Structure formats: structure tokens, C-alpha cells
């Protein structure tokens, strides 16, 4: 009981911090609400898919920006994808970084795009490590026989 209580408290604190710092938005709550006993790994599955897709996109983006000349249409298409999936899971700061990136693409600014990519990478790896920690906590709670409450 003590162990579960401690883990659940940690989980609540971690989740609240993620929302407070703007790393996650309301869309993540929508995802959590879709989880049910028939599909208890839904959030983990979607989040894993997001990580996988995003890392591929980041590779493509890095490669595309190294080309000479840069194909801004192609870069923008990748950023559009990234913006879409980050928006769908509620990764707010990643999404916002993508919005800035798209502006740099429109302006055809190579330096702007390079910086924007760095920012997107930074935000992505930040949310990735925090979400991995959250999911791990949830696994520990379940393994200890506890339940996971949802954010109100």
C-alpha cells in the first residue's frame, strides 16, 4: 500500500509538472481517456509510435537541410508531418517548435531552419524522456497491483 501510494504520488507530480511546464496539453488527456481495460496499452502504443516516427523524421530533416540547395518544400512536408503527430498526442512544445520551423521554411532561411531543427530536437528528446519516465511509473504501479487515475 505504501509502495503504491508513493508511486502514484510520483506519477501525479510528474504528470502535473508536464502540463504546468507546457510540455503536454489537453490532447494528451484525451488520449488517456481513450484507454480502457480492453486496450490498456493504448497510450504506450501511440507514444511509442510517435517516438519511432519522430526519430525517422528528424533523420530526414537533418539530411534534407544538409543538401545543397535545400528543398524547402520537402523540409516543410516533413515538418508538417511532425507537427501533425505531435499535435495528436498533445506534445505541445514540440508542436510549437514545428510551427516556428515552418515559418523558417516559408522564408527559405537556411540558418533559421537549422536553429528551428535544433529546437525541435531539444523539445522532442525532452518530452521523450519525461514520457518514458511516466510510462515506466505507470507500469510499476500496475505491477505492484495499483491502478492509474486519470487527470481531471
Amino acid at each position, binding site marked *: 500500500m505504501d509502495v503504491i501510494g508513493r508511486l502514484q504520488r510520483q506519477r501525479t507530480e510528474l504528470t502535473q509538472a508536464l502540463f504546468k511546464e507546457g510540455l503536454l496539453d489537453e490532447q494528451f488527456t484525451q*488520449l488517456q481517456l481513450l484507454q*480502457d481495460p480492453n486496450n490498456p496499452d493504448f497510450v504506450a502504443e*501511440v507514444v511509442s509510435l*510517435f517516438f519511432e*516516427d519522430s526519430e525517422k523524421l528528424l533523420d530526414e530533416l537533418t539530411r534534407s537541410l544538409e543538401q545543397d540547395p535545400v528543398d524547402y518544400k520537402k523540409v516543410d*512536408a516533413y515538418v508538417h*508531418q511532425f507537427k501533425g*503527430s505531435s*499535435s*495528436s498526442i498533445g506534445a505541445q512544445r514540440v508542436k510549437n517548435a514545428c510551427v516556428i520551423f515552418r515559418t523558417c521554411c516559408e522564408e527559405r532561411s537556411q540558418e533559421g531552419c537549422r536553429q528551428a531543427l535544433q529546437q525541435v530536437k531539444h523539445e522532442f528528446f525532452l518530452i521523450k524522456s519525461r514520457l518514458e519516465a511516466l510510462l515506466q511509473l505507470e507500469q510499476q504501479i500496475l505491477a505492484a497491483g495499483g491502478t492509474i487515475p486519470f487527470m481531471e
Partner: protein
Amino acid sequence: MVNKSTRIQKLKGGLPTEALAKVESGDGSRIHVLAVDDNSVDRKFIEKLLKISCYKVTTVDSASRALEILGLIEGTPPLAPNAFKINLIITDYCMPGMTGYDLLKTVKECSSLKEIPVVIMSSENVPNRIKTCLAEGAEEFLLKPVQIADVKRLEGHVRDRKP
């Protein structure tokens, strides 16, 4: 009773339907929605929203695959138009190659499929785009991320068509 999946497997020369799309098996009483989106996260998300709303769901990652499922793409021994009995199509607008708008147009230009309601999704709120899609016959234009309430409401587009 002929199992539809098996019949299609034979027609396609052994290519399993799973290679074309994720087709859910089940009875014919539920509304069958064809969801089209090239983004895998979005595809998983819309699939879940649809399933939770008790629709039967088939997901594909492109407009051309959607046309294969609908029996519109020629070349291979064709599926009968709407062999999978799709009741509603929900498609992303921005997709590489054939867009959701192109898909909408193609469906509406086909006499055997034009009655199928089509809903467009987009992450971008572009008034001209919305107007053009609605003018072409889309039932609705949903902004992403799509909400569960939007999905539950889709049923209305299908019911309106029942004789």
C-alpha cells in the same frame, strides 16, 4: 457462406488483404468506416476513436489504397465496387501523391460510390480549402486533432442516407 477475405485473397493472387489495409472482420450491422491517413500516429488515433464509437474500421495509409479497397483501381482483377460495404469515408486532406480532396472527387464522380458520405480532416484551418471540399460534396470538414464528439456524430451522415 463465402468468407469475403478469402475470396479477395484469391482474386489478388494470394496477396493478403492485410497487405492492402487493416480490415476488421465482423457482422454487417455496424457502420463500416474507411479511415485514410498517411500519418501513422493519426491513423492509430482515428482508429481508436472510431472503434470506441462502435464503428467497424478499416484503415489505409493512402488515397490509392483507399481506391483499391473501394474497388475503383483497375489493373488487378477488380473488387466489385464497395465489396467491403464501406458506409462512410473519413480522410486526411494533406497526403503525398493523391490528396484527400482528390479522393473525394474520385468517389463523387463514380456512380456506384458517390452516395458514400465523405468527411475530410485537416490540421490546417484554411477557409478556401474547407469551402472547396464542401462544394465538392464532403459532408463535413473536421479540424485535427479530431475529438470523440466529432466521431460520434459521423453516424448521422450515414443514417441520413438510409432509405
